[in-house]
């Protein structure tokens, strides 16, 4: 409740960049708009083609899951939010988004951008909420390698471009370039969202564990438009 005191400050200090973005959007030449439009059309076409395959794959997945007698995949609902502030303290990786209790945001809700998982909501105020990024030194999340399903815990180290995997033994099959997705084991993040990509694996026989450094997929310091995920029983407000 007290935290709502901070909201107007973040909303006001965000105004200049919002104004700048608005200016860049509305002061465009016709050529630029056309070019932009063409690019978007091309992208849409690509995604539509993928979507076509997706439908049959999803159907197949459901059939296979029925054969295996496992639970159906739950479709997640999302709410589009916008970043309005960044923690002024360089040691804490927190951002402020412009959706709060009024929009149905709840504690622990995951935040995504177009590329991958960004973090989770740690403080909900009336109009804004604070999100702890996955790279914060106090954050860790359960992941698995999408290639072979090996589970691990990705821990933030306070660097926006780096996470480390904890307690990965030297014999585990991890390779540079592997994609890590959220495993859903912590009951906090939904399963299957891309988290990071392995950038280096060091097997030092003198150390008890392999040193695995990964790079987050999400553009943690560039994304302005982000998605809040509502898992199974979240509020119904602001559904997309």
């Amino acid at each position, binding site marked *: 409740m007290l*935290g709502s005191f901070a909201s107007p400050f973040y909303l006001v200090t965000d105004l200049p960049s919002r104004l700048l973005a608005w200016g860049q959007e509305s002061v465009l030449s016709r050529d630029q708009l056309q070019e932009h439009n063409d690019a978007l059309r091309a992208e849409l076409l690509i995604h539509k083609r993928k979507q076509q395959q997706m439908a049959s794959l999803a159907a197949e997945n459901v059939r296979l899951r029925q054969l295996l007698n496992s639970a159906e995949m739950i479709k997640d609902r999302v709410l589009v939010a916008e970043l309005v502030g960044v923690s002024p303290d360089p040691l804490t990786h927190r951002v402020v988004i412009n959706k709060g209790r009024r929009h149905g945001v709840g504690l622990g809700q995951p935040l995504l951008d177009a590329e991958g998982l960004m973090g989770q909501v740690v403080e909900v105020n009336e109009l804004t909420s604070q999100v702890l990024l996955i790279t914060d030194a106090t954050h860790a999340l359960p992941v698995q390698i999408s290639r072979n399903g090996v589970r691990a815990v990705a821990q933030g180290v306070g660097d926006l471009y780096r996470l480390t995997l904890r307690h990965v033994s030297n014999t585990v099959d991890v390779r540079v370039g592997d994609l890590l997705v959220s495993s859903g084991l912590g009951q906090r993040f939904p399963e299957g969202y891309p988290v990071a990509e392995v950038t280096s694996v060091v097997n030092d026989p003198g150390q008890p564990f392999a040193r695995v450094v990964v790079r987050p997929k999400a553009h943690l310091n560039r994304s302005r438009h982000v998605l809040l995920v509502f898992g199974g029983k979240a509020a119904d407000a602001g559904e997309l």
Partner: protein
Amino acid sequence: MVLIKAHNRWLITTTFVLALFLTVFPVGAALSWLRPEFITLLVIYWVLVMPQQLSLLRLWLLGCAVDLLVGSMLGQHALALMVVSYVCMLSYQRVRRYALWQQSAFVFLIVGLQQLVSNWVHSLSGSTPPSLVFLMPALASALVWPFLYLYLNRLRLRLRVS
């Protein structure tokens, strides 16, 4: 910070509110270590020129406001501000006679002390600064101090804040 028009003391409150805005104004990740501690600078300034107007209780409330704003542990900035302002209140009679560059050095020490206390509390929650880089805001504050001091002095004298 009683609002009596004839004394123009609203200037004190206004500068602090502005400083709160500057504290959260978004800058790039590269520049975030170079943000001067505006709140601490203003506390030093107002304690130097009108020590009777700022009580430790008010400064504690101000520190709590900063904590809420930044989202840090409640009391982290409050504690740091109290320590710092107490030092300022003990030494204001000497420091206000200093030359500007000497005052800058004093500001460096004070803001450094504030960072030290603040980071000590912060490190209890698990995040430790990588190196002495956490003293960078102190350097930035010391560099900003002469401009802030001269400008606020002029403003204060024109408005006859008393």
